[in-house]
């Protein structure tokens, strides 16, 4: 487990040295969500009906774009090769790396979401389920997307390919995430949908690093 805490510490330290990388996905999320009220006619109720889809698709794209650089800088600096030969379980190193990435870019995104929901004229009662849904959904997106990031790490123009690989894998999370908010808007109980989102998180978190580690070894030509 020493690899876990060491990687976590290193990631947080690196992020504190270059905070811009941390802020960019958040900025992207806010800008994309604020584009929609400008593009859609301001009919009452229309924005509210679209809000679940808009917030979730924007969060999904922000997570995916932030993942493009998850392993790239490590690969360019040669750190990735060191991680691969290091005498610690790659599973836990990857787990720490993705968790740190979520803490630094995903969590701010989740925390700012209620504000954006308010801008999209969502009633205050559903902001809690928006927050909880994103809290369970964004780490799942991180772990799934990390598989794609690991497979495309050495490729030039890999970001387009990353989108092609990862977006179909994101669909279940999107369906249940936006679905939870939709149910909350109709006044239905959201706990069953949240349970499914939680189950997906448990599965992505336990099996995801396994696939990511394998993907990194494949990309490094092992």
């Amino acid at each position: 487990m020493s690899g876990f805490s060491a990687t976590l510490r290193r990631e947080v330290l690196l992020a504190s040295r270059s905070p811009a990388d941390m802020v960019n996905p958040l900025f992207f999320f806010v800008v994309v969500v604020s584009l929609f009220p400008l593009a859609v006619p301001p009919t009452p109720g229309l924005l509210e009906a679209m809000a679940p889809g808009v917030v979730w698709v924007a969060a999904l794209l922000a997570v995916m774009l932030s993942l493009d650089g998850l392993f790239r800088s490590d690969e360019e600096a040669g750190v990735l090769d060191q991680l691969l030969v290091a005498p610690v379980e790659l599973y836990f190193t990857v787990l720490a790396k993705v968790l740190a990435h979520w803490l630094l870019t995903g969590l701010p995104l989740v925390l700012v979401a209620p504000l954006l929901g308010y801008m999209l004229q969502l009633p205050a009662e559903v902001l809690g389920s928006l927050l909880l849904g994103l809290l369970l959904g964004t780490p799942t997106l991180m772990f799934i997307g990390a598989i794609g990031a690991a497979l495309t790490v050495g490729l030039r123009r890999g970001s387009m390919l990353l989108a092609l690989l990862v977006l179909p894998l994101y669909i279940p999370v999107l369906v249940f995430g936006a679905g939870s908010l939709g149910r909350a808007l109709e006044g239905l109980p959201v706990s069953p949908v949240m349970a499914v989102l939680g189950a997906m998180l448990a599965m992505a978190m336990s099996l995801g690093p396994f696939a990511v580690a394998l993907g990194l070894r494949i990309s490094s030509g092992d």
Partner: protein
Amino acid sequence: MSSDAVSRAGLPAHFFAVSLSAGLLALMTWFIWSAPPVARTVWLAGGWTFGVLFYYGALRYPHWYWQTLERWYHQLGSPPHFYRIAGLWLPWLVIIATVLCVVGVVWGLAFAPPHHEQGNSYRIIYLHVPASSAALMAYVAMGVAGLVALVWRLKMAEIAIKAIAPFGAIMAAVSLISGAIWGRPTWGTYWIWDARLTSMLILLFMYLGVIALQNAIRDPRQAGQAASLLSVVGVINVVIVRYSVDWWQSLHQGSSMSMFGTAGSAIHPSMLAPLLLCMFGTYFLFAVTVLVRARTEILWRERKSAWVREEVA
């Protein structure tokens, strides 16, 4: 560095073995449990007979079993052998596929009775159902090949994935297009965001992802391994996608043919017979396409070796 996929991913081997066998056991139990009583008896009896015979044979003649397994592994895993064996099988497979498809399509389009509600427009199922089934089956085959390629690093399994992906993508596209043409007169729309249609569309996207990843990586072994991992992840995803989109209201009619369901088959035998012919014909077409593509890929990959020079000259 170890060549074993399990240790490559940083987990002990028994974790992998235990979870895989537990999953398979659970799946089989569920299948047998959900079957109607008659089918349950048949499945259980057949399974026990097969199992007892297999274990009796394995205990009695362990060397023969082991040698046969090893021979298959080496012969099918070695490109020159596979090339020759596939070349021997191909003419027969082509004949079977042609006969089944031609008979099935002519019977279905010209001789099967019209549907009492849909008239003649239902006849598109003789194209639509085999294509959908082949698209799903090809993805599962790709996942199995991917698992084999990851665990044993078999070169032939990587070649198989490369051979299967375009066929599956085309079948998914045929299924979507034929379904749209049928949907217009029957449902009144070409496209609707229904659970089954959406799953098939996502399946098409996932095929395209595998093809794109394969094309992006220059080294063929590395491309094969990456595509293997993506196909294995994709198989898990296909299952989850299926259940998550079922969560919506579904417009598509339920499956009319069932091997496990409680209702049995809801389609009349006079319509079912040509449909089954078309489906088996498509499966043989799948085998033909995959073998031809695999043979071409083998020739390309081994183009510098002596046996290919002899073969081509």
